[in-house]
């Protein structure tokens, strides 16, 4: 699997309140998997999330924020309405919180203000895709590997 250089951002998954995948996008040119695979992965993330809120030693937990491994890092941003944005990136990448907040802003703009978008349904908005691609490119430029 040859990866494009200088592209720390890997994939974005957006999961709705009930755990269903509503958006998935790859940013590093990896081969696309079967759509059922993505659905399964998203449901798995969501399940970990719910379990984590129960397992916490403190009274309340907002769920998983980061999962770190040798080959990648996964960041999660949960909105007050229960929508979760997961972004997988290379381990050296930084500034994820800001980027995830900006992705949330794009969702609020180009999905929620779109009269043709139904809540909790898969996001199929051209402007969301186009703006997201631009945002990730900006992020990649900011976080070039040394």
């Amino acid at each position, binding site marked *: 699997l040859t990866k494009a250089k200088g592209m720390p951002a890997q994939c974005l998954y957006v999961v709705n309140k009930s755990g269903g995948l509503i958006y998935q996008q790859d940013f590093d040119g990896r081969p696309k998997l079967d759509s059922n695979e993505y659905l399964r992965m998203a449901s798995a993330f969501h399940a970990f999330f719910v379990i984590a809120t129960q397992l916490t030693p403190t009274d309340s937990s907002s769920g998983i924020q980061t999962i770190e491994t040798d080959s990648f890092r996964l960041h999660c941003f949960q909105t007050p309405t229960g929508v979760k944005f997961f972004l997988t990136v290379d381990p050296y990448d930084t500034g994820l919180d800001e980027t995830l907040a900006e992705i949330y802003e794009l969702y609020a703009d180009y999905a929620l203000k779109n009269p043709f978008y139904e809540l909790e349904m898969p996001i*199929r908005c*051209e*402007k969301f895709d*186009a703006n997201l691609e631009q945002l990730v490119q900006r992020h990649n430029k900011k976080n070039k590997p040394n």
Partner: protein
Amino acid sequence: MTEVPTGAAGAQLQTPTMRVSSPLDKEIRGGSGKGSEVSLSAFAFLFSELVQYTQSKSASVQEFQQRLAEVGYAVGVRMLELNSFTGKGSAKRELTILDMLGFLSGPLWRRLFGKKADRVEQTVESGEYIICDDNILVSQYISTPNDKSGLNCASLVAGIVQGVLDSSEFNATVVAHNMQSDTGPKASRTGIFIRFDEDVLARNAKMTS
């Protein structure tokens, strides 16, 4: 000693030289400045709901565009009145087609959307005039799905333009169409196509000759 009668708000009735302040005496907030601005997000959500409502009431794309244009028409009529009352250089009435188009794409567009329209074009064959906006404000956050590509939410703006034109005695048919954009799917390049009635064109020809 006579009792001084009190006004509706319980205020003392003043002598004839002093006016009681009421909402009708206040300045209409117009032109530029904080009072005339509205949150874009608030408008976007309201417009999104309006589009969904119109869609539920319409059986076809034609009907949808017409209903949305009717909403815009009412806005256009009132906008012209408001502009005549408070706009800059507002005392002037436009008499020729070119002046009218200049007014539409300049002061009116700025009043509605905060900026001038990008271009005004004229098609050679059909005698239509087109006001182009590279990223029209009302559709800024809207991505129409491919199966509904005939549907244009900028029909609201077409209605506004038609309202203004009809009230200024420039009867025309106004439609909004998507135009090819070289910036990709990020911006909705829209053209407001204006076809003036025959008598308007004849009158204009007489005036400008």
